[in-house]
C-alpha cells in the first residue's frame, strides 16, 4: 500500500506532490502539460482497472469498454443533446458504471480466465455496435472536434481539470480501499472461499467493485474527451484493455499508485521512443519482457519490497 493519506506524514507527501503538479504548467512548455494530462487520465484508467484486478482478484480483461463508453457517453451528450457539457461529464461515467453493472451481473458467475473471456466477448459486442452504428456514433471515424466549456479548453485548463478530477478520484479510490469494503475486497482476492466462509457475499462485493471500476474508467474516458476533444471506436478495442492491464502489472498491481506509474512509463516510452524509431512497439515489448523477468511485482512493487516497508499498521492503533 502506498503511504496513507490518512496519517499525517503521508498527507504531507501527498500535498507536496499536489503542489508540484499544480505549478507544472508555469514551468514546463505546453507539450509537457499535455503529456501530463494524458498520463494522469491514463493513470486513472489503469488504476480503475486495477481496483477489481489487483485488489479484487477479478480478471478484468476488457476494461477499455467502460473507458470508451464513458467517453462516448460524454461526447454524445455534448454533440447530440443541448445539455450543458458539465452534465455530460457526469452522465458519461454513470453510463459506464451502469454498463459495469450489467456486464458484471452476466460475467460474475464465472471466475478467472473464464470471466475475462466472457467480458471480452461482451465488450466486443459493445465495440461492434459502436463501430457500425454510423448515424449515432460516427462509426469507425468517431466523433471529432467535441467542444468543451472555455474554461477547460486550453491546455492549462484541461490539465487543471484533469488534475482535480484525477486527484478526487484517487482520493475516493484510496478511501474505498482503506474502508472495510476495501479490506474485504482484498480478502476476496486472496481467498474467495475463505471470504464466503466468514460471511461475505463474494459475488455482490465483486459486483460493486466492477461498478466502481466502470465508473472511474468512465471518468477517465470523459477526461480524454476534455483533453483531446475526440472519441473513436479504438478506445474500446481489446488491445487497449491489454495495455491497461500491462500498465497495472508494469507499475505494480498490488500497489495503489503502481498503475499510475505504469501508465506514465508507457506513455513516456511510447511518446519519446517513437521520435527516434518507427519500431517503438519492439522497444516496449522488450522492456515488458525484462520487467516481468526481473521485477515480477512491477516497478513500484519492487521499490516497496526494496525499501522493506512492513505493512504499516501504525494507523490501526487507536
Amino acid at each position: 500500500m502506498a503511504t496513507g493519506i490518512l496519517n499525517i506524514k503521508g498527507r504531507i507527501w501527498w500535498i507536496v506532490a499536489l503542489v508540484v503538479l499544480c505549478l507544472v504548467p508555469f514551468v514546463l512548455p505546453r507539450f509537457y502539460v499535455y503529456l501530463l494530462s494524458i498520463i494522469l487520465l491514463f493513470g486513472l484508467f489503469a488504476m480503475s482497472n486495477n481496483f477489481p484486478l489487483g485488489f479484487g482478484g477479478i480478471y478484468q480483461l476488457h476494461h477499455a469498454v467502460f473507458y470508451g463508453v464513458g467517453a462516448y457517453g460524454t461526447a454524445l451528450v455534448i454533440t447530440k443533446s443541448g445539455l450543458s457539457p458539465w452534465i455530460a461529464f457526469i452522465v458519461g461515467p454513470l453510463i459506464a458504471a451502469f454498463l459495469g453493472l450489467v456486464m458484471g451481473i452476466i460475467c460474475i458467475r464465472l471466475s478467472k480466465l473464464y470471466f475475462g473471456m466472457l467480458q471480452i466477448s461482451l465488450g466486443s459486442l459493445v465495440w461492434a455496435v459502436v463501430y457500425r452504428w454510423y448515424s449515432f456514433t460516427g462509426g469507425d471515424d468517431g466523433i471529432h472536434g467535441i467542444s468543451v466549456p472555455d474554461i477547460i479548453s486550453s491546455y492549462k485548463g484541461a490539465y487543471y481539470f484533469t488534475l482535480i478530477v484525477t486527484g478526487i478520484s484517487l482520493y475516493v479510490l484510496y478511501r474505498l480501499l482503506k474502508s472495510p469494503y476495501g479490506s474485504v475486497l482484498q480478502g476476496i482476492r486472496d481467498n474467495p472461499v475463505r471470504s464466503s466462509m466468514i460471511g461475505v457475499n463474494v459475488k455482490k462485493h465483486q459486483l460493486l467493485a466492477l461498478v466502481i471500476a466502470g465508473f472511474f474508467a468512465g471518468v477517465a474516458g470523459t477526461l480524454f474527451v476534455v483533453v483531446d476533444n475526440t472519441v473513436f471506436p479504438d478506445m474500446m478495442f481489446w488491445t487497449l484493455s491489454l495495455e491497461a492491464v500491462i500498465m497495472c502489472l508494469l507499475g505494480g498491481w498490488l500497489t495503489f499508485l503502481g498503475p499510475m506509474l505504469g501508465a506514465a512509463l508507457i506513455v513516456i516510452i511510447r511518446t519519446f521512443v517513437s521520435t527516434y524509431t518507427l519500431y517503438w512497439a519492439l522497444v516496449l515489448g522488450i522492456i515488458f519482457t525484462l520487467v516481468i523477468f526481473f521485477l515480477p511485482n512491477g516497478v513500484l512493487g519492487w521499490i516497496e519490497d526494496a525499501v522493506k516497508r512492513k505493512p504499516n499498521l501504525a494507523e490501526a492503533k487507536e
Partner: protein
Amino acid sequence: MRRSVLFVVFMVFVMGLVWSQSGYSANTIKVGIVDTYSGPATTYTQDALDGFKLATEQINAKGGILGKKLEYTTRDEKFKPDIGLAMAKELVLKEKVDILAGTINSGTALAVSDFAKKEKMPFFVFYSKSEKIIGEKGHKYVFNMNENTEMAGRAAAVALSKKPYVKYWIAGDDYEYGHAIADATWNNLKKMKAGVQLLGQSWWKVGEADFTPYITQILAAKPDFIIVATGGSGMVNFQKAAKATGLVQKIPFYQHTANELGTLLPQGKDAPEGVWGTSNYFFYYPETPANKAFVDDFRKAFNRYPKASALVGFMTAQFIAEGYKKAGKIDNEAFIKAIEGMSLDSPVGPLAIRACDHQLELPTYWGVTKKDPKYDFLISGDIQVIAPKDYMPTCQDVLKLRK
C-alpha cells in the same frame, strides 16, 4: 543487486527520453508526418512518404525554400487515432514543426485536423479519403491532397452512366470508407442515369478473408454489374475470391483503385483480368516526359514503381515549397493565402488546389485490369480520363456541408 542495476538503468533511460531534444535548427522548414507505417496501409503510406522524400531532395538540391532547407520527421501511429493525435501534438508542441502532413486513417485525419484548426497549423492530408475532411469538418487550415470518397464515387458514376448496365448490386467492407464510396457511386449514378435499379447489398466485416458466401449470394441474384466498395487489404482479398469463384467472368464489377498498382502489384500475374477501377495515377500513363522523369527518379531512388500515393507525397512537398516561396516568409496565414488556388505542373499535368475548399483537383483514370507482357503484374487498359471539372463536386456543394 542485479535488479537494482537494471532498475537504475531503466529509470535513466526513461529520464533520458524525456529530456532529450531532437536536433532543431532555425534554418529549416520542418514538416511533421504522422502516418501508419505498419499493417496493410503501409502499401500506400510508404509511397506517399517516399514521394515526399524525393521531392524534398529535389527541392533542397535546388537551394531549398527562401534559403532554408526542407526537412521532415515521421511518426508511426499504427492506425490508432489516439496515438496519432498525441503524436501530432508532440510534433507541433515539442518538435515545433511548421506544417503537419500525413495519415491514411480517416479517424486520425479528422482528429488531427481538429487540432490543426485550433493551432492554426496547415495540415496536408495524404491518403485518407473521408469527404468530411474538407466537407463537414473542413476549415481554413486543412488541405486534401488526394481524391475523397465523394469524388471517387462521382468519377465512377460518370463512367458507369455511359455503360449499358441497369441492374446493380452493392457489396463492400462494412466500415465508413466502404459505405461512403458505395453511397457516393450509387447516389450519383442514380442522378446521372435514370432507370438503374439496385437489386441488393452485401456488407462484410473489414478484414474478411472469405468472400465466397457473399459471391454466391450475388451470383444467385444475377445483377448486371456489381459496385464493390472495398479498401486496403480487402481489395486484394476480393479480387482473389472473384478469380477463384469465377465471378469475374460472369458479372463485371468495379472497385475504386482496382486498377491501381497498390492493388495489382502484390498479386503479380495472378490478379484477375477484366476488373473495372478508378485511380488517380499510373506510372505508365500519361506517357509524358514529366511523368517519365518522375518515374525514373522514383525508381532510381527506391528501386520500384511509384503508386498513386507517391504522387500525393511528391506534390505535397512541391506545394509546400512553392507556397512559402510565393508567400515570401515563414508565416502560416501568408502561406495559406499563397497556396489557395495555386497550380503546379505535375507528372499528370497541371494540378491546382481549389481555393474554396482546399481540395487538390486531380484527374481520375477509369480503366480495366489486363495483362501486359512488359510487366510481371497486371496494369490498367482502356484508360479513360475523367477531368476534374467533370466529376468534382462544386464549391457550393462542399461549402454547404460545412454548415
